[in-house]
């Protein structure tokens, strides 16, 4: 991103490992993951349902379910402080110092007071269920500001109106008095984003923000999130299973499978030079508008049941390129470039040389060509 500015790390998830105790047994949902996030940048976490993407983000917000046990790991949240407590006043940046806190070690009360909604805000999937149907839009936007910053009602009202304008809602004053059911799906999601932005967070977590929306509204919401991110210089984490969304918004991509990150890289590395067979599968399964094929590629089988832990690589049963060692030993992360690494034995120097499937290779070549024709330097 911006070269002249120092990249400030604001979230550092280290070796996180979480188990859920259920009546059916222990579910090992997160198996040692690492994620870094820098100020003003966008990280996408991609994976199928049940891969642990949402659990990871819930851990980062300190809102894990009661039956979750954190076996190991740290979630270091770094923040600027120039007021005391955990507050930051952007007008007085010179006096701000960076501090850090491990979210997993803080108690619920501290997290609710300092983190949830205030420093880290979340946009959920379905705006109809994340808004309160009995409260006016205005009240819901003002609620957080009044609770966190103790500002008076009039002040909060003015800020809320400005927020609604910022997220592209016309007739903001009129909308303030309306209830969620009076708005369309896209409008509701805009309101949810306004609520998330109301306390000036430095990190916005979007959990499948557009899955419940139509494609044309999806594009508008993604463009909106990009716009506010740029204006406010905040970091955004996207949780999604849609690689089309990822291509539009992300700087870095983490591909998750069965509670592990199997490949991480910057956006171009993941889309133009993927290394993990699972990433190959995900990319191949995307409908391709450029060809006349009438069959879609699919990843055979379904995601594993984490109740029963498997020896070796969790992806091996669905992996056409699995080696013998995959059934015995879990692959470590192999570093490919400074930012790109993948957990597959195929990258081991002793492994046989395996290329990605020819169809995908052709498709990537075509994508690169199209990108170049449109003036990108790849």
């Amino acid at each position, binding site marked *: 991103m911006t070269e002249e500015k120092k990249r400030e790390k604001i979230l550092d998830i280290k070796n996180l490992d979480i188990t859920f105790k259920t009546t059916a047994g222990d579910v090992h949902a997160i198996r040692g993951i690492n994620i870094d996030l820098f100020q003003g940048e966008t990280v996408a976490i991609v994976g199928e349902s049940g891969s642990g993407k949402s659990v990871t983000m819930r851990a980062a917000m300190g809102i894990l379910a009661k039956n979750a046990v954190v076996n190991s790991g740290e979630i270091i949240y770094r923040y600027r402080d120039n007021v005391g407590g955990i507050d930051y006043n952007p007008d007085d940046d010179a006096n701000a110092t960076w501090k850090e806190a491990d979210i997993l070690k803080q108690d619920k009360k501290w997290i609710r007071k300092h983190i949830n909604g205030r420093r880290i805000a979340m946009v959920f999937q379905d705006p109809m269920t994340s808004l309160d149907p009995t409260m006016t839009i205005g009240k819901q936007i003002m609620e957080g500001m009044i609770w966190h910053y103790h500002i008076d009602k009039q002040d909060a009202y003015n800020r809320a109106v400005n927020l609604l304008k910022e997220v592209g809602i016309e007739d903001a004053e009129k909308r303030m008095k309306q209830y969620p059911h009076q708005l369309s799906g896209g409008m509701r999601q805009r309101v949810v984003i306004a609520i998330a932005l109301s306390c000036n967070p430095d990190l916005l977590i979007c959990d499948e923000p557009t899955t419940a929306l139509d494609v*044309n509204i*999806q594009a508008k919401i993604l463009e909106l999130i990009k716009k506010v991110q740029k204006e406010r210089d905040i970091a955004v984490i996207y949780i999604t299973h849609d690689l089309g969304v990822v*291509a539009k918004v992300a700087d870095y991509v983490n591909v998750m499978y069965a509670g592990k990150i199997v490949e991480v890289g910057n956006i171009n590395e993941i889309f133009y030079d993927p290394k993990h067979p699972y990433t190959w599968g995900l990319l191949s399964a995307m409908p391709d508008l450029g060809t006349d094929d009438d069959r879609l590629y699919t990843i055979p089988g379904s995601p594993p049941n984490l109740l029963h832990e498997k020896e070796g690589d969790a992806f091996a049963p669905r992996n056409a390129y699995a080696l013998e060692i995959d059934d015995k030993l879990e692959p470590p992360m192999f570093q490919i470039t400074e930012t790109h690494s993948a957990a597959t034995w195929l990258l081991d120097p002793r492994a046989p040389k395996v290329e990605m499937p020819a169809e995908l290779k052709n498709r990537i070549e075509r994508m690169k060509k199209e990108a170049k024709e449109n003036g990108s330097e790849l």
Partner: protein
Amino acid sequence: MAANYNEAPLLEVEGLKQYFPISSTYTVKAVDDVSFKVYPGETYGLVGESGSGKSTIGRSIIRLYDPTEGKISFAGMDISGKMSKSTKDKLRMQMQMIFQDPMASLNPRKKIKDIIGEALDVNKLYNTREERDRRVEAILQKVGLAKEHADRYPHQFSGGQRQRVGIARALILNPKLVIADECISALDVSIQAQVVNLMKDIQEETGAAYLFIAHDLSMVKYISDRIGVLHLGHLLETGTTDEIFSNPIHPYTKSLLSAIPIPNPELEKNRIALNYDYKTSGLDYTKGTEHLVSGTHYVKCTDEEFARFMAGEQ
């Protein structure tokens, strides 16, 4: 594809109107004068945003609603007005529906074999218990599930497997037409591909026609032979998949196509989706009539609008 355009259309919808009176002064015109045909063995994709009336059309055709006006004929029968008992029985056997959310559309307290076998029970299509089980097993196999799955309950399945059960239930009577109402939008992308491929395989085998209702144009492209684009209850543009994708005429179709995310970051990052707003577009759908673009490609608009679209203006 096994679509057969020489035969008489399997489903013919003509001037379908579906109004819902809200009060004495206000009526929601969910579907307003829609006409299209579905031929045996083909897949017709109906696309549009939420509220465009695509699900309403599906429900009117299968007669979950009573159409306000218009004529629907299916396999030679008129199914739009009051139906005789024999017509109704035939309709219920030959037309089936797959719903959006497999968790909500499968009875959580019934075993899979009873969910799928219910249609057999209702229509008394077996003589012995074994015959029923055999038919259920055969259909389970066809949709890629094992016979051990027959004794399980819906909650024991993953999302993709549940939708396979929904498909099996729709297919057990060998219907001529299956209405798939957003049947993949609740699934992960990789699972969507599995379900779409499965539906195609089954179509090739059984020759059933599909009315595929969806808002995701990229998947519709894979499965459909022909596409109809709906907006605010009006069928704006219809043609073969190729005609719609390579030469969209109506500005609404163009905006829908431009909103499809492309999995190519260098292109996608700076692309802005086309904006389309009916209120400010100056178009009037109610005045539109069908205009032929080429082949089977039709656009609904006024003469003057048609000239503008063809000249490449918005």
